[in-house]
């Protein structure tokens, strides 16, 4: 009996605006002729990326000057975050992030200082305001994709035309939860988009050591999910692939996978020193592919931008970032009650209520009465 070929797969790589800022005019338009991004949209998104970069830069400085704890810079990954954020509908679609797509969260209504509050060691930075459709930053790697799958599943159960989009890194694709999420999403055909920011590194582990797969995108093939690789530093490609995936999901076409090929231009976090494990030449090469530089060149070539505008934007972005920091630092310290009050919905169990009161009196970990001490002895 002849051996039959029972499955074949192909992974496409989408690039629309190349490293030299040349636009593929054909791919930059949808089949019906509409542009993937109008000039006005590109301008707006570019300025947004610059503003996000300014906050990111300032956050880094805050950590260095001891005003904030560990912080993971987003530098270099702005096109991926902004592109995906743009493709999702604010207030309708649900973002389920890890921690390197601040720009998308801000675009969807998260006050900028919330992210800083989080990294300043304050849970109120996770207290997502009403109407903002997103989950808080996710520190444990690879766990949030299952939640996104569940959220999307609820949308499907209730027949709502909404989509969940979840962000994660290349390293996260090694966790078991990632594979379970992909399988559930696909088995139940839920409207979920899996957006992998392949920034080439998981702390010190390079992408090639993380997995023997040639691409991350191909992992979705095993789960029967439409999948594509895009140049993650190309805003056009990210917007096009994300819109495709999100609208397919909204129309009932099930989950999709996107691998955005990008690069972590900074250290993993402020607690890391990437010089220990990666080549300066590699970083230099990727610096040239910085999505902000690429977009600016494109805009300048189209005479939509110039140095004067840039200088004005830089000033404005810096001032705005300073304002964000001022807001975050201006919030008074949390009260110790906070650590108890959200453990459960009110009322708290009696023991917890007792512990809360005990702490208010600056006493020990247990109420003195529990140790048989009378109030007077205490």
């Amino acid at each position, binding site marked *: 009996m002849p051996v039959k070929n029972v499955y074949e797969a192909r992974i496409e790589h989408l690039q629309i605006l190349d490293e030299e800022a040349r636009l593929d005019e054909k791919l930059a338009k949808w089949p019906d002729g509409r542009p993937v991004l109008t000039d006005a949209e590109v301008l707006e998104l570019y300025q947004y990326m610059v503003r996000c970069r300014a906050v990111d830069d300032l956050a880094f400085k805050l950590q260095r000057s001891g005003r904030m704890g560990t912080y993971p810079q987003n530098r270099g990954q702005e096109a991926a975050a902004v592109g995906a954020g743009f493709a999702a509908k604010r207030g309708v679609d649900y973002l389920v992030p890890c921690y390197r797509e601040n720009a998308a969260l801000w675009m969807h209504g998260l006050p900028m200082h919330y992210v800083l509050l*989080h990294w300043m060691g304050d*849970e109120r930075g996770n207290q997502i305001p009403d109407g903002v459709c997103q989950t808080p930053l996710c520190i444990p790697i690879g766990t949030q994709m299952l939640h996104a799958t569940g959220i999307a599943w609820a949308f499907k159960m209730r027949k709502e035309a909404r989509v969940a989009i979840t962000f994660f890194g290349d*390293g996260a694709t090694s966790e*078991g939860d990632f594979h379970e999420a992909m399988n559930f999403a696909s088995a139940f055909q839920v409207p979920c988009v899996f957006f992998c920011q392949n920034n080439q590194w998981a702390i010190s582990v390079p992408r090639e050591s993380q997995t023997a797969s040639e691409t991350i995108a191909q992992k979705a093939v095993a789960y029967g999910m439409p999948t594509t690789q895009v140049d993650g530093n190309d805003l056009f490609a990210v917007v096009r692939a994300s819109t495709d995936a999100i609208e397919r999901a909204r129309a009932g076409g099930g989950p999709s996978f996107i691998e955005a090929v990008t690069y972590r231009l900074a250290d993993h976090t402020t607690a890391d020193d990437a010089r220990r494990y990666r080549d300066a030449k590699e970083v230099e090469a990727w610096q040239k592919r910085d999505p902000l530089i690429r977009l600016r060149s494109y805009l300048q070539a189209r005479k939509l931008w110039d140095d004067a505008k840039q200088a004005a934007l830089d000033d404005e972005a810096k001032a705005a970032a300073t304002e964000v920091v001022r807001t975050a630092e201006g919030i008074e310290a*949390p009260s*110790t009650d*906070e650590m108890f009050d959200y453990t459960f919905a009110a009322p708290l169990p009696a*023991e917890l209520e007792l512990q809360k009161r005990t*702490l208010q009196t600056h006493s*020990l970990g247990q109420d003195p009465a529990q140790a048989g001490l009378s109030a007077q002895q205490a």
Partner: protein
Amino acid sequence: MPLMTLVQAINSALAQEMERDERVVILGEDVGLNGGVFRVTDGLQAKFGPDRVIDTPLAESGIMGTAIGLAMAGMRPIPEIQFEGFLGPAYDQLCNHAARYRSRTRGAVTVPMTVRVPWGGGIHAPELHSDSPETIYVHQPGLKVVCPSTPYDAKGLLLSAIRDPDPVVFFEPKRVYRSFKEEVPEEDYTIPIGQAKVLTEGTDLTLVSWGSMVFQCLEALDTLPDDMSVELIDMRSLYPFDTDAIVQSVEKTGRCVIVHEAPKTCGLGAELATVLQERCFLHLKAPVQRVAGFDVMMPYYKLELDYLPNAQKVAQAVGQCLAY
């Protein structure tokens, strides 16, 4: 004798045992070229090669589960879980598999491995980087659990753990990693698992702790009046724990305060207090007291010091217990 931090002492034990026993391999996230995020395995990959100091994919269940297989097949793996919070994904492999193999095969299959885990709060770290989940693993039959608080103890206990025929969870208090240096012998020595250490002798009250809280206890002792004679015991091993050491001490002092940073309810302090009332009820002059974390999520770092027991709280509890 060289002076070493906790980090250096652990590194020295690892290097020494890898030299002595070629079955020993280290595996985990960023443990190789980067030397671990706390640099505990710094230089080991350069010395022993990437086949023995292995950067794994980012998967704790994968690390723990394959370490079990390595151990079953005759290796002596030392998996590292980057932070105690990330034992979560590895829990099933550790508790439902590593811990159970010997028992369920009636001794035919065993899992000699040492799981190294940075542990505890106090370093301004993000979420799930500051917890103290030791009770969960103490409560799991089949696992030994240690938590040294000093460089000297860390080296001796780590060498014991690696040579132990059963899985050992080795918690490393992050707050102590670089907080001080002490003399640590270069040569091979072991500290038996299951032995506590009396740090200061005393006759009026027994103070029991482990991990970084030991230093809060020491600080508290400095603030107490000279006529208060307190015996401070560092448990070091959390399972099996040294019942005799605490019983003997409390039979002498009649009073005990237990200090730990884990949440109070069902923390290890609860078990120790129970053992004390079982074993020396008639010697007790006061109820055993606990100074512990609260029954809440370890807060982000702005409230971390409000959550953690400190020297003042310990001193207060000691005073109260003595006044009872």
